[in-house]
Protein backbone atom coordinates (compact mmCIF):
# COMPACT_ATOMS: atom_id res chain seq x y z
CA UNK A 1 0.00 0.00 0.00
CA UNK A 2 2.88 2.32 0.86
CA UNK A 3 4.35 1.55 -2.55
CA UNK A 4 1.11 2.38 -4.27
CA UNK A 5 0.87 5.70 -2.48
CA UNK A 6 4.46 6.50 -3.38
CA UNK A 7 3.96 5.67 -7.07
CA UNK A 8 0.78 7.75 -7.12
CA UNK A 9 2.53 10.77 -5.63
CA UNK A 10 5.37 10.49 -8.13
CA UNK A 11 2.85 10.08 -10.93
CA UNK A 12 0.92 13.16 -9.87
CA UNK A 13 4.12 15.21 -9.73
CA UNK A 14 5.31 14.30 -13.21
CA UNK A 15 1.72 14.34 -14.45
CA UNK A 16 1.38 17.95 -13.28
CA UNK A 17 4.25 18.92 -15.54
CA UNK A 18 2.68 17.08 -18.48
CA UNK A 19 -0.57 18.86 -17.68
CA UNK A 20 1.08 22.30 -17.82
CA UNK A 21 2.76 21.40 -21.13
CA UNK A 22 -0.56 20.08 -22.46
CA UNK A 23 -2.27 23.32 -21.41
CA UNK A 24 0.28 25.12 -23.57
CA UNK A 25 -0.73 22.93 -26.54
CA UNK A 26 -4.42 23.56 -25.88
CA UNK A 27 -3.99 27.32 -25.48
CA UNK A 28 -2.37 27.59 -28.90
CA UNK A 29 -4.57 25.02 -30.59
CA UNK A 30 -7.86 26.50 -29.52
CA UNK A 31 -6.99 29.92 -30.89
CA UNK A 32 -4.89 29.17 -33.95
CA UNK A 33 -5.59 25.45 -34.73
CA UNK A 34 -1.83 24.93 -34.72
CA UNK A 35 -0.25 21.99 -32.91
CA UNK A 36 2.96 23.47 -31.59
CA UNK A 37 5.45 20.63 -31.32
CA UNK A 38 8.05 23.11 -30.05
CA UNK A 39 6.14 23.31 -26.76
CA UNK A 40 8.64 20.97 -25.08
CA UNK A 41 11.45 23.26 -26.18
CA UNK A 42 9.90 26.11 -24.16
CA UNK A 43 10.16 23.86 -21.10
CA UNK A 44 13.78 23.08 -21.88
CA UNK A 45 14.58 26.79 -22.40
CA UNK A 46 12.92 27.57 -19.07
CA UNK A 47 15.11 25.13 -17.16
CA UNK A 48 18.36 25.99 -18.94
CA UNK A 49 17.88 29.78 -18.78
CA UNK A 50 17.30 29.51 -15.05
CA UNK A 51 20.52 27.50 -14.76
CA UNK A 52 22.52 30.21 -16.55
CA UNK A 53 20.94 33.07 -14.62
CA UNK A 54 21.51 31.46 -11.24
CA UNK A 55 25.09 30.60 -12.16
CA UNK A 56 25.60 34.30 -12.97
CA UNK A 57 24.58 34.92 -9.36
CA UNK A 58 21.18 36.44 -10.06
CA UNK A 59 18.79 36.25 -7.10
CA UNK A 60 16.40 33.33 -7.38
CA UNK A 61 13.16 35.32 -7.63
CA UNK A 62 14.61 37.67 -10.25
CA UNK A 63 15.95 34.77 -12.31
CA UNK A 64 12.49 33.24 -12.15
CA UNK A 65 10.87 36.35 -13.62
CA UNK A 66 13.58 36.97 -16.22
CA UNK A 67 13.33 33.35 -17.39
CA UNK A 68 9.58 33.56 -17.91
CA UNK A 69 9.86 36.89 -19.73
CA UNK A 70 12.70 35.60 -21.92
CA UNK A 71 10.89 32.41 -22.98
CA UNK A 72 7.64 34.34 -23.52
CA UNK A 73 9.48 36.61 -25.94
CA UNK A 74 10.71 33.52 -27.83
CA UNK A 75 7.12 32.26 -28.03
CA UNK A 76 5.91 35.64 -29.25
CA UNK A 77 8.70 35.73 -31.84
CA UNK A 78 7.79 32.26 -33.04
CA UNK A 79 4.24 33.38 -33.80
CA UNK A 80 5.29 36.73 -35.23
CA UNK A 81 8.12 35.51 -37.45
CA UNK A 82 6.93 32.04 -38.48
CA UNK A 83 3.31 31.08 -37.85
CA UNK A 84 1.88 34.37 -39.11
CA UNK A 85 3.71 34.00 -42.40
CA UNK A 86 2.49 30.46 -42.92
CA UNK A 87 -1.10 31.62 -42.64
CA UNK A 88 -3.46 29.38 -44.53
CA UNK A 89 -1.01 26.48 -44.68
CA UNK A 90 -2.54 23.05 -44.10
CA UNK A 91 -2.22 21.18 -40.78
CA UNK A 92 0.62 18.96 -41.99
CA UNK A 93 2.69 21.96 -43.08
CA UNK A 94 2.04 23.71 -39.78
CA UNK A 95 3.07 20.64 -37.78
CA UNK A 96 6.26 20.46 -39.84
CA UNK A 97 6.90 24.16 -39.28
CA UNK A 98 6.76 23.70 -35.52
CA UNK A 99 8.91 20.55 -35.71
CA UNK A 100 11.45 22.60 -37.66
CA UNK A 101 11.36 25.28 -34.98
CA UNK A 102 11.82 22.64 -32.29
CA UNK A 103 14.88 21.15 -34.03
CA UNK A 104 16.28 24.64 -34.56
CA UNK A 105 15.85 25.69 -30.91
CA UNK A 106 17.27 22.35 -29.72
CA UNK A 107 20.31 22.72 -32.00
CA UNK A 108 21.00 26.25 -30.74
CA UNK A 109 20.53 25.12 -27.13
CA UNK A 110 23.03 22.29 -27.53
CA UNK A 111 25.55 24.78 -28.89
CA UNK A 112 24.92 27.26 -26.05
CA UNK A 113 24.56 24.93 -23.05
CA UNK A 114 26.36 21.80 -24.22
CA UNK A 115 25.03 18.28 -23.92
CA UNK A 116 25.41 17.64 -20.19
CA UNK A 117 22.57 17.56 -17.72
CA UNK A 118 22.76 20.66 -15.55
CA UNK A 119 21.90 21.16 -11.90
CA UNK A 120 19.39 23.78 -10.79
CA UNK A 121 18.69 24.53 -7.12
CA UNK A 122 15.23 23.69 -5.78
CA UNK A 123 12.85 26.53 -4.85
CA UNK A 124 13.13 25.85 -1.16
CA UNK A 125 15.21 23.58 1.04
CA UNK A 126 14.66 20.13 -0.36
CA UNK A 127 14.45 17.78 2.61
CA UNK A 128 12.05 14.94 1.81
CA UNK A 129 8.85 14.95 3.82
CA UNK A 130 7.11 11.80 4.97
CA UNK A 131 3.41 11.52 4.26
CA UNK A 132 1.64 8.32 5.32
CA UNK A 133 4.53 6.03 4.50
CA UNK A 134 5.50 7.78 1.26
CA UNK A 135 8.21 10.38 0.87
CA UNK A 136 7.81 13.50 -1.20
CA UNK A 137 10.28 16.31 -1.77
CA UNK A 138 9.16 19.90 -1.21
CA UNK A 139 9.99 20.58 -4.86
CA UNK A 140 7.42 17.96 -5.92
CA UNK A 141 4.86 19.71 -3.74
CA UNK A 142 5.80 22.97 -5.47
CA UNK A 143 5.25 21.34 -8.86
CA UNK A 144 1.74 20.18 -7.92
CA UNK A 145 0.92 23.58 -6.37
CA UNK A 146 2.11 25.42 -9.47
CA UNK A 147 -0.09 23.22 -11.64
CA UNK A 148 -3.12 23.96 -9.47
CA UNK A 149 -2.41 27.71 -9.53
CA UNK A 150 -1.85 27.70 -13.30
CA UNK A 151 -5.08 25.84 -13.92
CA UNK A 152 -7.10 28.20 -11.74
CA UNK A 153 -5.51 31.32 -13.21
CA UNK A 154 -6.08 30.05 -16.73
CA UNK A 155 -9.67 29.25 -15.85
CA UNK A 156 -10.21 32.76 -14.51
CA UNK A 157 -8.45 34.32 -17.51
CA UNK A 158 -10.51 32.41 -20.04
CA UNK A 159 -13.90 32.48 -18.37
CA UNK A 160 -13.96 35.67 -16.31
CA UNK A 161 -12.04 38.32 -18.23
CA UNK A 162 -12.56 40.28 -21.44
CA UNK A 163 -9.29 38.92 -22.85
CA UNK A 164 -10.65 35.44 -22.28
CA UNK A 165 -13.86 36.28 -24.07
CA UNK A 166 -11.86 37.65 -27.00
CA UNK A 167 -9.81 34.45 -26.93
CA UNK A 168 -12.91 32.32 -27.12
CA UNK A 169 -14.46 34.50 -29.77
CA UNK A 170 -11.51 34.27 -32.13
CA UNK A 171 -11.33 30.54 -31.52
CA UNK A 172 -14.99 30.01 -32.46
CA UNK A 173 -15.20 32.34 -35.43
CA UNK A 174 -12.25 34.57 -36.37
CA UNK A 175 -14.25 36.55 -38.92
CA UNK A 176 -17.08 37.36 -36.54
CA UNK A 177 -14.53 38.21 -33.87
CA UNK A 178 -12.86 40.64 -36.23
CA UNK A 179 -16.19 42.29 -36.95
CA UNK A 180 -16.61 42.81 -33.22
CA UNK A 181 -13.26 44.57 -33.06
CA UNK A 182 -11.17 41.70 -31.77
CA UNK A 183 -7.90 41.08 -33.56
CA UNK A 184 -7.43 37.32 -34.08
CA UNK A 185 -3.79 38.10 -34.92
CA UNK A 186 -3.29 39.64 -31.51
CA UNK A 187 -5.03 36.69 -29.92
CA UNK A 188 -2.78 34.27 -31.83
CA UNK A 189 0.23 36.25 -30.62
CA UNK A 190 -1.09 36.18 -27.09
CA UNK A 191 -1.74 32.45 -27.19
CA UNK A 192 1.85 31.72 -28.23
CA UNK A 193 3.27 34.09 -25.62
CA UNK A 194 1.06 32.62 -22.93
CA UNK A 195 1.89 29.04 -23.75
CA UNK A 196 5.61 29.84 -23.90
CA UNK A 197 5.25 31.34 -20.42
CA UNK A 198 3.47 28.16 -19.30
CA UNK A 199 6.28 26.08 -20.78
CA UNK A 200 8.90 28.16 -19.01
CA UNK A 201 7.04 27.80 -15.73
CA UNK A 202 6.95 24.02 -16.18
CA UNK A 203 10.67 24.09 -16.97
CA UNK A 204 11.45 26.12 -13.86
CA UNK A 205 9.39 23.86 -11.64
CA UNK A 206 10.84 20.62 -12.93
CA UNK A 207 14.47 21.71 -13.35
CA UNK A 208 15.55 20.76 -9.81
CA UNK A 209 13.97 17.30 -10.19
CA UNK A 210 14.90 16.42 -13.77
CA UNK A 211 18.30 18.10 -14.31
CA UNK A 212 17.61 19.96 -17.55
CA UNK A 213 19.54 19.27 -20.73
CA UNK A 214 19.18 20.44 -24.33
CA UNK A 215 17.23 17.36 -25.39
CA UNK A 216 14.70 17.14 -22.55
CA UNK A 217 12.14 19.02 -24.65
CA UNK A 218 11.49 16.23 -27.14
CA UNK A 219 10.03 13.75 -24.70
CA UNK A 220 8.21 16.42 -22.65
CA UNK A 221 6.73 17.80 -25.86
CA UNK A 222 5.60 14.34 -26.96
CA UNK A 223 4.08 13.58 -23.54
CA UNK A 224 2.37 16.96 -23.47
CA UNK A 225 1.01 16.41 -26.96
CA UNK A 226 -0.19 12.95 -25.92
CA UNK A 227 -1.87 14.44 -22.86
CA UNK A 228 -3.62 17.08 -24.96
CA UNK A 229 -4.76 14.45 -27.51
CA UNK A 230 -5.79 12.03 -24.79
CA UNK A 231 -7.86 14.66 -23.03
CA UNK A 232 -9.32 15.88 -26.30
CA UNK A 233 -7.60 18.65 -28.25
CA UNK A 234 -8.98 22.02 -27.34
CA UNK A 235 -10.20 21.05 -23.90
CA UNK A 236 -8.31 22.55 -20.95
CA UNK A 237 -9.83 20.24 -18.32
CA UNK A 238 -9.06 17.41 -20.74
CA UNK A 239 -5.42 18.48 -20.88
CA UNK A 240 -5.15 18.34 -17.09
CA UNK A 241 -6.86 14.95 -16.91
CA UNK A 242 -4.70 13.67 -19.79
CA UNK A 243 -1.51 14.95 -18.17
CA UNK A 244 -2.25 13.45 -14.76
CA UNK A 245 -3.37 10.17 -16.34
CA UNK A 246 -0.15 9.85 -18.34
CA UNK A 247 1.92 10.71 -15.27
CA UNK A 248 0.11 8.06 -13.20
CA UNK A 249 0.32 5.43 -15.96
CA UNK A 250 4.02 6.03 -16.29
CA UNK A 251 4.75 5.93 -12.60
CA UNK A 252 2.57 2.88 -11.85
CA UNK A 253 3.83 1.11 -14.99
CA UNK A 254 7.43 1.79 -14.01
CA UNK A 255 6.79 0.74 -10.41
CA UNK A 256 4.81 -2.43 -10.92
CA UNK A 257 5.96 -3.71 -14.32
CA UNK A 258 9.27 -2.33 -15.55
CA UNK A 259 10.82 1.10 -15.72
CA UNK A 260 12.13 0.42 -19.23
CA UNK A 261 8.68 -0.54 -20.45
CA UNK A 262 6.86 2.48 -19.01
CA UNK A 263 6.64 4.27 -22.37
CA UNK A 264 5.26 1.15 -24.05
CA UNK A 265 2.56 0.88 -21.40
CA UNK A 266 1.71 4.58 -21.55
CA UNK A 267 1.51 4.82 -25.32
CA UNK A 268 -0.35 1.52 -25.67
CA UNK A 269 -3.02 2.83 -23.32
CA UNK A 270 -3.17 6.09 -25.31
CA UNK A 271 -3.65 4.10 -28.53
CA UNK A 272 -6.35 2.02 -26.84
CA UNK A 273 -8.23 5.09 -25.59
CA UNK A 274 -8.02 6.71 -29.02
CA UNK A 275 -9.41 3.50 -30.46
CA UNK A 276 -12.41 3.57 -28.16
CA UNK A 277 -12.89 7.32 -28.20
CA UNK A 278 -11.19 8.84 -31.26
CA UNK A 279 -11.73 12.41 -30.11
CA UNK A 280 -10.10 11.95 -26.71
CA UNK A 281 -11.64 11.76 -23.26
CA UNK A 282 -13.35 15.15 -23.23
CA UNK A 283 -13.59 15.40 -27.01
CA UNK A 284 -13.17 18.40 -29.22
CA UNK A 285 -16.74 19.51 -28.75
CA UNK A 286 -15.81 22.01 -26.10
CA UNK A 287 -14.09 24.06 -28.82
CA UNK A 288 -17.44 24.51 -30.49
CA UNK A 289 -18.90 25.70 -27.24
CA UNK A 290 -16.07 28.15 -26.96
CA UNK A 291 -14.29 26.79 -23.92
CA UNK A 292 -10.55 26.45 -24.04
Amino acid sequence: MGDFFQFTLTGLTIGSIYAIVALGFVTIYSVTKVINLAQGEFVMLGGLTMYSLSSFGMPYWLGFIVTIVFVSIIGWLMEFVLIRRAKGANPISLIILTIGTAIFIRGIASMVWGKDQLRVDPFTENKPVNIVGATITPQAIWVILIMLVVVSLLYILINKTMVGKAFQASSINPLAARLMGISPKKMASLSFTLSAALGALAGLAIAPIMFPSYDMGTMLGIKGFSAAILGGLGSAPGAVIGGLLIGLLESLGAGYISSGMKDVITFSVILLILLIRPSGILGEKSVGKGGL
Partner: protein
Amino acid sequence: MKLQGVQQTKWMGVLIFTLAVLIFPLIITQSFYLTHATFAGIYAIIAIGLGLLMGYAGQISLGQAAFYGIGAYTTSILTVTMGWSPWLTLPLALIIPGLLAFIMGYTMSRLSGYYLAMATLALGIIVHTLLVEFRGITKGASGFFGIPQLELFGYTINQGVPYYYLVWFFVIIVLILSLNIVHSRVGRALRSIHDSEIASSSMGVNTGKYKMQVFILSAMFAGLAGWLLAHMSYSISPSMFTFNASILFLAMVVLGGSGSVWGALIGTLLIKMIGIVVHILGGQFTFITSDFEHVIYGLILMLVVIFVPRGLFPTAADWINSILSKKSTIKLDKPSVMKARRFDVKD
Protein backbone atom coordinates in the same frame (compact mmCIF):
# COMPACT_ATOMS: atom_id res chain seq x y z
CA MET B 1 -6.10 11.85 -68.88
CA LYS B 2 -3.16 12.95 -70.99
CA LEU B 3 0.14 13.60 -69.37
CA GLN B 4 1.28 17.13 -69.52
CA GLY B 5 4.44 19.19 -69.49
CA VAL B 6 7.16 17.89 -67.26
CA GLN B 7 5.12 14.81 -66.41
CA GLN B 8 5.25 13.76 -70.04
CA THR B 9 8.96 13.24 -69.71
CA LYS B 10 8.47 10.80 -66.84
CA TRP B 11 10.18 7.80 -68.42
CA MET B 12 12.87 9.99 -69.88
CA GLY B 13 13.52 11.14 -66.34
CA VAL B 14 13.85 7.57 -65.08
CA LEU B 15 16.27 6.76 -67.90
CA ILE B 16 18.47 9.80 -67.29
CA PHE B 17 18.36 9.16 -63.57
CA THR B 18 19.37 5.51 -64.02
CA LEU B 19 22.32 6.56 -66.16
CA ALA B 20 23.39 9.08 -63.52
CA VAL B 21 23.18 6.34 -60.86
CA LEU B 22 25.28 4.00 -63.03
CA ILE B 23 27.94 6.60 -63.78
CA PHE B 24 28.29 8.05 -60.25
CA PRO B 25 30.75 5.44 -58.85
CA LEU B 26 32.88 5.70 -61.97
CA ILE B 27 33.44 9.41 -61.36
CA ILE B 28 33.46 9.54 -57.59
CA THR B 29 35.47 6.72 -56.13
CA GLN B 30 36.22 7.81 -52.55
CA SER B 31 34.56 5.34 -50.20
CA PHE B 32 33.36 8.24 -47.99
CA TYR B 33 31.07 9.53 -50.73
CA LEU B 34 30.07 6.06 -51.86
CA THR B 35 28.93 5.14 -48.35
CA HIS B 36 26.89 8.33 -48.12
CA ALA B 37 25.43 7.73 -51.58
CA THR B 38 24.41 4.22 -50.49
CA PHE B 39 22.76 5.59 -47.35
CA ALA B 40 21.03 8.21 -49.49
CA GLY B 41 19.53 5.37 -51.53
CA ILE B 42 18.26 3.62 -48.41
CA TYR B 43 16.67 6.85 -47.16
CA ALA B 44 15.25 7.59 -50.61
CA ILE B 45 13.22 4.36 -50.50
CA ILE B 46 11.63 5.44 -47.21
CA ALA B 47 11.11 9.02 -48.37
CA ILE B 48 9.36 7.96 -51.59
CA GLY B 49 6.91 5.86 -49.57
CA LEU B 50 6.34 8.64 -47.05
CA GLY B 51 5.90 11.11 -49.90
CA LEU B 52 3.12 8.95 -51.36
CA LEU B 53 1.46 8.78 -47.96
CA MET B 54 1.67 12.51 -47.31
CA GLY B 55 1.16 13.91 -50.76
CA TYR B 56 -1.37 11.46 -52.14
CA ALA B 57 -3.18 10.01 -49.15
CA GLY B 58 -2.84 13.26 -47.20
CA GLN B 59 -1.76 11.49 -44.01
CA ILE B 60 1.22 12.29 -41.84
CA SER B 61 3.34 9.59 -40.24
CA LEU B 62 5.58 10.58 -37.34
CA GLY B 63 6.68 6.98 -36.83
CA GLN B 64 8.11 5.82 -40.14
CA ALA B 65 11.34 4.79 -38.39
CA ALA B 66 9.35 2.03 -36.67
CA PHE B 67 8.72 0.22 -39.97
CA TYR B 68 12.33 0.84 -40.99
CA GLY B 69 13.51 -0.68 -37.70
CA ILE B 70 11.17 -3.65 -37.96
CA GLY B 71 12.52 -4.41 -41.43
CA ALA B 72 16.10 -4.28 -40.16
CA TYR B 73 15.41 -6.34 -37.03
CA THR B 74 13.35 -8.96 -38.88
CA THR B 75 16.28 -9.88 -41.07
CA SER B 76 18.84 -9.56 -38.27
CA ILE B 77 16.92 -11.88 -35.96
CA LEU B 78 16.31 -14.44 -38.69
CA THR B 79 19.84 -14.45 -40.12
CA VAL B 80 21.90 -14.05 -36.95
CA THR B 81 19.81 -15.94 -34.39
CA MET B 82 18.07 -18.48 -36.61
CA GLY B 83 20.70 -18.79 -39.33
CA TRP B 84 18.43 -18.08 -42.31
CA SER B 85 19.77 -17.01 -45.66
CA PRO B 86 19.49 -13.18 -46.07
CA TRP B 87 17.54 -13.46 -49.34
CA LEU B 88 14.87 -15.61 -47.70
CA THR B 89 14.24 -12.90 -45.12
CA LEU B 90 13.58 -10.22 -47.74
CA PRO B 91 9.88 -11.07 -48.22
CA LEU B 92 9.39 -11.15 -44.46
CA ALA B 93 11.11 -7.78 -44.02
CA LEU B 94 8.45 -6.43 -46.38
CA ILE B 95 5.45 -8.36 -45.11
CA ILE B 96 5.86 -7.82 -41.36
CA PRO B 97 5.98 -3.99 -41.50
CA GLY B 98 3.15 -4.11 -44.04
CA LEU B 99 1.09 -6.32 -41.75
CA LEU B 100 1.66 -3.98 -38.81
CA ALA B 101 0.59 -1.04 -40.98
CA PHE B 102 -2.51 -2.99 -41.94
CA ILE B 103 -3.46 -3.72 -38.32
CA MET B 104 -2.67 -0.17 -37.35
CA GLY B 105 -4.55 1.30 -40.32
CA TYR B 106 -7.47 -1.03 -39.77
CA THR B 107 -7.93 -0.18 -36.12
CA MET B 108 -7.06 3.47 -36.58
CA SER B 109 -9.18 4.07 -39.65
CA ARG B 110 -11.46 6.27 -37.58
CA LEU B 111 -8.60 8.62 -36.83
CA SER B 112 -7.40 11.41 -39.06
CA GLY B 113 -5.26 14.50 -38.97
CA TYR B 114 -3.56 15.19 -35.67
CA TYR B 115 -4.98 12.06 -34.07
CA LEU B 116 -3.41 9.83 -36.73
CA ALA B 117 -0.13 11.73 -36.35
CA MET B 118 -0.35 10.95 -32.63
CA ALA B 119 -1.04 7.26 -33.31
CA THR B 120 1.99 6.88 -35.61
CA LEU B 121 4.10 8.81 -33.12
CA ALA B 122 3.01 6.41 -30.37
CA LEU B 123 3.80 3.42 -32.60
CA GLY B 124 7.30 4.80 -33.26
CA ILE B 125 8.02 5.18 -29.56
CA ILE B 126 6.55 1.79 -28.66
CA VAL B 127 8.62 -0.02 -31.29
CA HIS B 128 11.81 1.81 -30.31
CA THR B 129 11.30 0.99 -26.63
CA LEU B 130 10.54 -2.66 -27.41
CA LEU B 131 13.73 -2.92 -29.46
CA VAL B 132 15.67 -1.75 -26.40
CA GLU B 133 13.75 -3.76 -23.82
CA PHE B 134 13.25 -7.18 -25.44
CA ARG B 135 16.86 -8.06 -24.79
CA GLY B 136 16.30 -11.78 -25.33
CA ILE B 137 15.26 -11.26 -28.93
CA THR B 138 16.72 -7.90 -29.96
CA LYS B 139 19.94 -7.92 -27.86
CA GLY B 140 18.88 -4.68 -26.17
CA ALA B 141 20.44 -1.26 -26.54
CA SER B 142 23.73 -2.52 -27.98
CA GLY B 143 21.90 -4.19 -30.87
CA PHE B 144 22.92 -6.93 -33.28
CA PHE B 145 26.45 -7.72 -34.40
CA GLY B 146 27.69 -9.93 -37.18
CA ILE B 147 24.82 -9.57 -39.60
CA PRO B 148 25.82 -11.62 -42.66
CA GLN B 149 26.61 -9.97 -45.97
CA LEU B 150 24.51 -10.65 -49.02
CA GLU B 151 25.71 -13.09 -51.62
CA LEU B 152 24.63 -13.24 -55.23
CA PHE B 153 25.74 -15.96 -57.67
CA GLY B 154 28.54 -16.90 -55.29
CA TYR B 155 29.86 -13.34 -54.99
CA THR B 156 29.67 -11.42 -51.74
CA ILE B 157 28.12 -7.99 -52.11
CA ASN B 158 30.63 -5.90 -50.19
CA GLN B 159 30.24 -2.39 -48.93
CA GLY B 160 31.32 0.10 -51.54
CA VAL B 161 30.51 -0.07 -55.24
CA PRO B 162 28.65 -3.44 -55.21
CA TYR B 163 26.35 -2.46 -52.37
CA TYR B 164 25.83 0.98 -53.87
CA TYR B 165 24.53 -0.65 -57.04
CA LEU B 166 22.33 -3.07 -55.12
CA VAL B 167 20.69 -0.28 -53.09
CA TRP B 168 20.13 1.96 -56.08
CA PHE B 169 18.77 -0.97 -58.08
CA PHE B 170 16.03 -1.18 -55.44
CA VAL B 171 15.58 2.61 -55.44
CA ILE B 172 14.90 2.55 -59.17
CA ILE B 173 12.41 -0.31 -58.79
CA VAL B 174 10.62 1.62 -56.04
CA LEU B 175 10.73 4.76 -58.17
CA ILE B 176 9.19 3.07 -61.22
CA LEU B 177 6.60 1.31 -59.09
CA SER B 178 5.61 4.58 -57.40
CA LEU B 179 5.46 6.52 -60.66
CA ASN B 180 3.19 3.84 -62.05
CA ILE B 181 0.92 4.00 -59.02
CA VAL B 182 0.76 7.78 -59.19
CA HIS B 183 -0.19 7.74 -62.87
CA SER B 184 -2.66 4.90 -62.56
CA ARG B 185 -6.31 4.74 -61.59
CA VAL B 186 -5.27 4.45 -57.94
CA GLY B 187 -3.17 7.60 -58.24
CA ARG B 188 -6.06 9.54 -59.72
CA ALA B 189 -8.37 8.27 -57.00
CA LEU B 190 -5.88 9.35 -54.37
CA ARG B 191 -5.53 12.79 -55.89
CA SER B 192 -9.28 13.19 -55.85
CA ILE B 193 -9.34 12.12 -52.20
CA HIS B 194 -6.69 14.71 -51.60
CA ASP B 195 -8.76 17.47 -53.15
CA SER B 196 -12.02 16.50 -51.55
CA GLU B 197 -12.57 13.28 -49.69
CA ILE B 198 -16.33 13.79 -49.49
CA ALA B 199 -16.69 14.50 -53.21
CA SER B 200 -14.62 11.50 -54.22
CA SER B 201 -16.41 9.10 -51.89
CA SER B 202 -19.73 10.31 -53.27
CA MET B 203 -18.36 9.48 -56.73
CA GLY B 204 -17.86 5.92 -55.57
CA VAL B 205 -14.17 6.07 -54.69
CA ASN B 206 -13.43 3.84 -51.73
CA THR B 207 -11.30 6.40 -49.93
CA GLY B 208 -10.48 4.31 -46.88
CA LYS B 209 -9.22 1.41 -48.98
CA TYR B 210 -6.82 3.53 -51.04
CA LYS B 211 -5.49 5.40 -48.04
CA MET B 212 -4.88 2.10 -46.30
CA GLN B 213 -3.10 0.65 -49.34
CA VAL B 214 -0.73 3.60 -49.49
CA PHE B 215 -0.05 3.37 -45.75
CA ILE B 216 0.83 -0.33 -46.13
CA LEU B 217 2.98 0.36 -49.19
CA SER B 218 4.92 3.09 -47.40
CA ALA B 219 5.51 0.70 -44.48
CA MET B 220 6.76 -2.00 -46.86
CA PHE B 221 9.15 0.43 -48.53
CA ALA B 222 10.49 1.37 -45.09
CA GLY B 223 10.87 -2.36 -44.30
CA LEU B 224 12.85 -2.86 -47.51
CA ALA B 225 15.12 0.04 -46.52
CA GLY B 226 15.63 -1.60 -43.12
CA TRP B 227 16.58 -4.89 -44.75
CA LEU B 228 19.12 -3.09 -46.97
CA LEU B 229 20.53 -1.21 -43.99
CA ALA B 230 21.00 -4.37 -41.91
CA HIS B 231 22.98 -6.21 -44.58
CA MET B 232 25.05 -3.17 -45.40
CA SER B 233 26.23 -2.48 -41.89
CA TYR B 234 27.75 -5.21 -39.80
CA SER B 235 25.64 -4.11 -36.83
CA ILE B 236 22.38 -2.34 -36.05
CA SER B 237 21.07 -0.83 -32.83
CA PRO B 238 17.79 0.75 -31.68
CA SER B 239 19.37 4.22 -31.73
CA MET B 240 19.09 4.14 -35.53
CA PHE B 241 15.29 3.98 -35.37
CA THR B 242 14.28 6.85 -33.12
CA PHE B 243 11.73 9.65 -33.37
CA ASN B 244 14.52 11.84 -34.73
CA ALA B 245 14.99 9.46 -37.67
CA SER B 246 11.27 9.70 -38.45
CA ILE B 247 11.59 13.49 -38.41
CA LEU B 248 14.55 13.40 -40.77
CA PHE B 249 12.51 11.36 -43.29
CA LEU B 250 9.75 13.92 -42.93
CA ALA B 251 12.24 16.71 -43.63
CA MET B 252 13.37 14.98 -46.83
CA VAL B 253 9.82 14.73 -48.14
CA VAL B 254 8.88 18.28 -47.18
CA LEU B 255 12.00 19.78 -48.72
CA GLY B 256 11.67 17.99 -52.04
CA GLY B 257 7.91 18.20 -52.12
CA SER B 258 5.32 15.69 -51.08
CA GLY B 259 2.80 14.75 -53.70
CA SER B 260 5.67 14.14 -56.08
CA VAL B 261 7.69 10.95 -56.32
CA TRP B 262 10.67 12.82 -57.73
CA GLY B 263 10.32 15.43 -55.02
CA ALA B 264 10.86 12.91 -52.25
CA LEU B 265 13.91 11.52 -54.05
CA ILE B 266 15.43 14.94 -54.64
CA GLY B 267 14.66 16.00 -51.07
CA THR B 268 16.56 12.98 -49.78
CA LEU B 269 19.59 13.76 -51.91
CA LEU B 270 19.57 17.41 -50.83
CA ILE B 271 19.31 16.62 -47.10
CA LYS B 272 22.09 14.05 -47.46
CA MET B 273 24.27 16.58 -49.29
CA ILE B 274 23.70 19.19 -46.59
CA GLY B 275 24.78 16.60 -44.03
CA ILE B 276 27.98 15.90 -46.00
CA VAL B 277 28.77 19.60 -46.45
CA VAL B 278 28.29 20.26 -42.73
CA HIS B 279 30.48 17.24 -41.96
CA ILE B 280 33.27 18.50 -44.22
CA LEU B 281 33.01 22.08 -42.93
CA GLY B 282 33.08 20.66 -39.41
CA GLY B 283 36.60 19.42 -40.12
CA GLN B 284 37.65 22.98 -41.04
CA PHE B 285 35.90 25.10 -38.44
CA THR B 286 35.59 24.06 -34.81
CA PHE B 287 32.29 25.88 -34.21
CA ILE B 288 30.53 23.71 -36.81
CA THR B 289 29.57 20.63 -34.86
CA SER B 290 26.99 17.95 -35.49
CA ASP B 291 24.54 20.17 -33.59
CA PHE B 292 25.00 22.77 -36.27
CA GLU B 293 23.62 20.21 -38.71
CA HIS B 294 20.39 20.11 -36.74
CA VAL B 295 20.16 23.89 -36.67
CA ILE B 296 20.32 23.80 -40.46
CA TYR B 297 17.70 21.02 -40.77
CA GLY B 298 15.38 23.02 -38.53
CA LEU B 299 16.01 26.16 -40.55
CA ILE B 300 15.29 24.31 -43.80
CA LEU B 301 11.97 22.98 -42.51
CA MET B 302 10.91 26.45 -41.40
CA LEU B 303 11.99 28.19 -44.60
CA VAL B 304 10.46 25.58 -46.91
CA VAL B 305 7.05 25.66 -45.22
CA ILE B 306 6.96 29.46 -45.36
CA PHE B 307 8.44 30.15 -48.77
CA VAL B 308 7.96 26.98 -50.87
CA PRO B 309 5.11 25.20 -49.11
CA ARG B 310 4.74 22.63 -51.87
CA GLY B 311 8.42 21.74 -51.77
CA LEU B 312 11.21 22.45 -54.21
CA PHE B 313 10.46 19.96 -56.98
CA PRO B 314 6.76 20.67 -57.70
CA THR B 315 7.44 24.41 -57.52
CA ALA B 316 10.33 24.13 -59.95
CA ALA B 317 8.34 21.81 -62.24
CA ASP B 318 5.46 24.28 -62.42
CA TRP B 319 7.89 27.07 -63.11
CA ILE B 320 9.41 25.14 -66.02
CA ASN B 321 5.91 24.22 -67.23
CA SER B 322 4.85 27.84 -67.27
CA ILE B 323 7.89 28.76 -69.34
CA LEU B 324 7.16 25.89 -71.74
CA SER B 325 3.51 26.84 -72.02
CA LYS B 326 4.41 30.39 -72.96
CA LYS B 327 6.53 29.13 -75.83
CA SER B 328 4.22 26.47 -77.20
CA THR B 329 1.10 27.37 -79.10
CA ILE B 330 -1.00 24.69 -77.41
CA LYS B 331 -2.08 25.90 -74.01
CA LEU B 332 -1.38 23.43 -71.27
CA ASP B 333 -4.09 22.78 -68.80
CA LYS B 334 -1.98 24.23 -66.06
CA PRO B 335 -4.53 24.52 -63.24
CA SER B 336 -5.09 20.77 -63.26
CA VAL B 337 -1.38 20.11 -62.99
CA MET B 338 -1.12 22.50 -60.12
CA LYS B 339 -4.13 21.11 -58.44
CA ALA B 340 -2.84 17.58 -58.71
CA ARG B 341 0.32 18.50 -56.94
CA ARG B 342 -1.02 20.88 -54.42
CA PHE B 343 0.18 20.11 -50.93
CA ASP B 344 -3.11 20.50 -49.29
CA VAL B 345 -4.87 18.37 -46.76
CA LYS B 346 -8.44 18.78 -45.82
CA ASP B 347 -8.90 16.46 -42.89
